[in-house]
């Protein structure tokens, strides 16, 4: 019973993925057509094949989506690396230069205490409705 349900969930998931990919290929096809009219038949054909397989033989797409997911993960790492190098790191330098970074990473010789007593949020004022 549970296996059957899981199988149905898997098929439904693959169908949704195939619809999403079909839409993606259709959009690419449209862009290609209006841009230079060169590659759109390939994208259209891919969209049709994907949606047909998705409707009639979704299980045949499982390996395909597995590799797409792997590729997606690799692209994700590259994208995050770009964000880290070109956004996070410069932001870190700017905040440090402007002394706006309130996190401390090392002990300091000057203070006699590390306790923070200012800017403490009184628990009695905490707004429980907010996630921040």
């Amino acid at each position, binding site marked *: 019973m549970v296996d059957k349900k899981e199988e149905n969930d898997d098929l439904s998931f693959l169908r949704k993925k195939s619809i999403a990919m079909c839409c993606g290929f259709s959009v690419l096809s449209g862009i290609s057509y209006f841009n230079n009219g060169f590659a759109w038949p390939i994208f259209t054909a891919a969209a049709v094949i994907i949606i047909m397989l998705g409707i009639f033989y979704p299980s045949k797409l499982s390996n395909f989506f597995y590799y797409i997911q792997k590729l997606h993960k690799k692209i*994700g*790492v590259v994208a*995050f*690396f770009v964000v*880290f*190098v070109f956004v*996070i*790191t410069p*932001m*870190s*330098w700017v*905040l440090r230069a402007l002394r706006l*970074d309130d*996190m*401390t*990473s*090392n*002990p*300091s010789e000057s*203070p*006699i*205490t*590390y*306790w*923070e*007593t200012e800017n*403490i*949020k*009184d*628990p*009695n004022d*905490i707004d*429980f*409705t*907010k*996630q*921040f």
Partner: protein
Amino acid sequence: MENKDIYILGVSAFYHDSAAALIKNGQIVSAVQEERFSRVKNDCSFPIEAIKWILSDSHLGLSDIDHVVFYEKPFVKFERILATCIHFAPKGFGLFKKQVPTWLKEKIFQRKTIQNHFQDNFPESGWNKKLFFSEHHLSHCAAAFYPSPFEDAAILTIDGVGERVTTTVSIGRKGKIERLAELNFPHSFGLLYSAVTAFLGFKVNSGEYKVMGLAPYGSPIYSEKIKETLVDIRSDGSFRLRMKNFRFATEMRMFGSEFEKIFCTSAREPESNIEQIHMDIAASVQQVSDELFLMLVSYVKKLTKQSSLCLGGGVALNCASTGKVLESKIFDKVWVQPSAGDAGSALGAALAYYHIGLGRPRAVLKNYMPFLGPEFTLDQILADLDSCKAGYQVLSPDQVVQRAAQALADGKVLAWMQGRAEFSPRALGHRSILADPRVKDLKKTLNLKIKFRESFRPFAPAVLEEDASNWFDLPSPSPLMNFICKTRPEVRDVVPSVVHVDGTARVQTVSEEFNPDFYKLILKFKSLTNCPVLVNTSLNVRGEPMVLTPADAYRCFMNTRIDCLVIGNVYLEK
């Protein structure tokens, strides 16, 4: 006008030790960890089975719950992760690529995730969707203060990290909690202790108590080095970590290669041999912990001028250090939340919302006992045992105590399951393995053949409250097993199985009022042997959570060399 009862459900989840707790008009009704149902130790998944049990136990539907309170604020936590990445950049891509996608995909939508869990599991519930968020350390403070027996008290919470705060000093007065001072991430004593735990080859967030147990075998020869190279502690107990030696802020690991230089050894591989140097490292970090606790507590006393102290947060489960705090008499009375880690925060979040969010007054609990989990009727026990095809005898309560005590006196190992399960990582006589502490090689047998765990791990004594002072150097009763104290020299050879290598023991005092079944058993054992002490360890094997159901107990019984099992009035023997 009708006075409607207010039901609040506290939930902790998605990090480790997820749990749920229910309070009714500020009174604690029930609480249980998800791991007990899922059988996955330190389970971090949404505690749906715990919630289902809590509701059914109180004959409530989700629609009867007025408020659901989550134990921390997810956005603040995400902000801390981003702030950490920004602060440590260009280092820290390892952490960034691992943490940020997970947060963006799932964790940042925790409100929706929690709502979905409720809607999927209670489709017909008519839940009012009133979901609230406490702050992580406020949940710890509330769990430590509200169930304590004090009208007013100082509160010290120490853990790894919540949203951003790692250590807090507060005062609890009646229903209110006022925070006076705090330390922030990355400066966390919990994370320092966890880093050493990882270096010693134990699992972070669950292996810390192994380091504590290993410490007495070593000499604290590295404690000065730890203070010089890993943490800078000021005289008021405030501290900062020397982050260049740690990696938890930039990578998905706890310590850097610098640890190997500091301790002149490589990190211990999990499950490899434990050598003297590992014991020395454990002893050193434990000594730093003890010193730090005493400095912190002195500062808390100076700041709050209170006579009672409540301790919370995962680090408060370090009963060697809390024992030193009790012994120091800096505070007249010390109370530690038995479920001081994140599981207890489910209870804390619910209590914080009731007293602070709703502004309801607090009635002081004189004796909080954490027996808040499921219990089973005779019919349920028999049905479970029948389904396991177990052979058993149903006895009268007196006969059960007599048979169990006699078996213990004969040197047998007994699994003892009575009443409601503990909401605590420690077994307090409701889900326990018990044995005669006078047996010499018992420690080895229990560790290797029954618990299947490391041979150095100590066992705790449970002693009749009225006899405790004759056997242990304990300044006050310790019914929650929260403090380590010295065993009296004259009895160390009498009960060798519960005395650690340094002559200490983590004592549980048992009174008739608060733990009657367990009290009767120890009393009977005393009448047979003249010894009012039993070995008490949790009813589980290594890597598994404590048992919950009679079927769990039976499986544990059959898969180990436990000789007898008692569940309620049912007696089983191999």
